């Protein structure tokens, strides 16, 4: 049996009339960590959001298979229930929506989809306590409205908390590291590492290499102008850090495969 979790073939996507993804190919197997890097405007966040089903984007060509099934036919909430999770680059504040209730509704939605019963309040409370420790989040925060008045770092940690609660098969982290100080980065990375399983996969979208000091990727891909210009192992990230994205651009424009 194949352990291919995500299979992206020649994916083209646009927002309005503007084409952003222009032929992305990507294969992610269970148990793997992939880093998607690239300069601003290269399409990293678009890829992350297209996978999660953000309605602003239109897939114009190509296919996206999740566990062999066509993702395009699924509404965002169905993707989430099937096991796709997007940690947002800019988590949204939900005024008046209590964190506890929101989290419980989400967990129950996933469980119901799997044919399981909704969680008892007690069991959910226990799980919430446990996962909050994992991301070192102040329990007081979950008594408030979702993300409302949270600092940037608290919002990012709150994303990882939700990831921990929903236990996705495929977690896509959209620049979760941006705007974090070194302590927050360590906490977030530690949380992600503890959620790694042989049965799930992580796609890290990032501008910087620094989070890869904490989360070790199996593969690094460089996205440029809506295509994956180069793929490699962990060393590629270090090389990028040293030489900058222009190095990739120059080699791509020269029509040559950069040396390995």
């Amino acid at each position, binding site marked *: 049996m194949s352990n291919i979790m995500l299979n992206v073939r020649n994916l083209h996507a646009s927002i309005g009339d503007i084409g952003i993804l222009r032929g992305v190919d990507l294969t992610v197997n269970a148990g793997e960590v992939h880093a998607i890097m690239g300069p601003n405007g290269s399409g990293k966040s678009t890829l992350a959001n297209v996978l999660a089903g953000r309605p602003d984007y239109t897939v114009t060509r190509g296919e996206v298979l999740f566990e062999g099934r066509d993702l395009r036919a699924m*509404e*965002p909430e169905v993707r*989430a229930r099937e096991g796709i999770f997007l940690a947002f680059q800019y988590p949204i504040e939900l*005024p*008046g929506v209590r964190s506890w209730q*929101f989290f419980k509704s*989400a967990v129950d*939605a996933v469980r119901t989809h799997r044919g399981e019963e909704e969680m008892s309040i007690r069991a959910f409370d226990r799980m919430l306590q446990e996962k909050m420790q994992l991301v070192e989040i102040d329990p007081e925060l979950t008594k408030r409205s979702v993300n409302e008045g949270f600092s940037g770092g608290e919002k990012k940690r709150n994303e990882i908390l939700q990831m921990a609660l929903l236990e996705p098969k495929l977690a896509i982290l959209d620049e979760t590291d941006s705007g974090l100080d070194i302590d927050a980065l360590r906490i977030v990375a530690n949380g992600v590492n503890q959620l790694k399983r042989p049965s799930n996969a992580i796609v890290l979208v990032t501008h910087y290499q620094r989070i890869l000091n904490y989360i070790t990727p199996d593969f690094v891909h460089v996205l440029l102008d809506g295509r994956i210009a180069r793929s490699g192992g962990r060393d590629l990230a270090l090389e990028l850090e040293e030489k900058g994205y222009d190095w990739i651009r120059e080699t791509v424009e020269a029509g040559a495969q950069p040396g390995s």
Partner: protein
Amino acid sequence: MTQAQTKDDRYVSDFHALQKSVDGSEPAWLSRVRADAFARFAELGFPTARRGNERWKYTSVAPIAGATFIHAVAGAPDSVDARVLNGRLPHDDGWVTLAFVDGRYSPSLSTGAPELEGARISSLADSLASDGDVAERHLGRYARFEDDGFTALNTAFVNDGAILSVEREACIQRPIHLVYLSTGDGSPAVSYPRNLVVAGRNSESTVVETYLSLSPGRDLTNTVTEIVLDEGARIDHYRLLLDAADGFHVGTTRVHQSKDSSFTSSSISRGAALARHDLLVTLDAPGTSCSLNGLYVTSGREHIDNFINIDHAKPNTTSRLYYKGILDGSSRAVFGGTVLVRKDAQKADAQQSDKNLLLSDDAEVDSKPSLLIYADDVKCGHGATAGHIDQDTLFYMMSRGLDRKTASALLVRGFAGEIIDQVRLEPLRKFLDETFLGVLAGSQIGGGR
């Protein structure tokens, strides 16, 4: 307009019938007030938006002025079976309830006049029949009929309601629940509830007014509540307008505050064919404060108009005005909030805001908060917003597995929560959460794609 003339004639004949029926059985002062009020209505007629009348700019009362409502001199106040009220009203065994059916006191639906230490409560009709002292001193003193046709009509036809008098220093633990039911069977009828709340010095009390239509008739309720707070008094006031989708409701709440008194109110309404509430507060002494919250929820072709006027008449007065609306269908809401800070009212502190959530493209809100400031050392602010459910917000919630409907319902609940969570009466808060907002959860919030 001959049409309007005919309808006014109806009020004239109803008034003569009423005069005849109460002749000799009511105090002379009341008969005089009635006659004056009716004469004033004859001059004023129903309000219109003409001649720059900002107060009625966005609400036409033509559907009321053009309709014929039966005015029953006697009613059948014990005709309603208490069981039909189950779940349709907030309820708690600890509350003192005075219920009225089509404007008449209903002993069978009321808890009776209990021995309430520190307060006297009775129906207005009973109070007038025994000793009309409090009524005579206060009735009509605050809700002046001189400049308002509806208040003039209410005063002319006054016959029942609740009268609550709280003694000085008394702290009334049990909330007083005034329930107004309109039965709505048969021809459209009109009722004129009239309430008077007099809070003695340093007293504390809680009053809930609930208006409920029992069937989808086109009844008119024209109600006036006068609330007077003596020095240092505190009143928590709640006003609920429920289930009147096809009916008409016009209400005035007139509040007068003395030194260091504090008035908080939550006005929570479903829409109606036409609903209007005037909430008029006079901060008539230093140290007074009022906090007025409101939530209106409309759908279909309902229309609701909240007109609020806060008069900072003296220095060192504080007001907070915070209303929210949730509009669906092709309903329409009007919010008119005026804060007046008079020349001598230095150090006034006034904030007002009105925020609206539109659940459909056809719903419409006209929100006009305004400040009239004549003092120079004040702290005042106001704002109004109206918007749809944010698509990015919905996507965020759906990316966690919630379907559109559940996500929308949570957002709507969150939006309303800011008002509902401030309700201090637990049974009322529960009712609002489960029953009032439950109606919303069942509707097609957020629409389709």
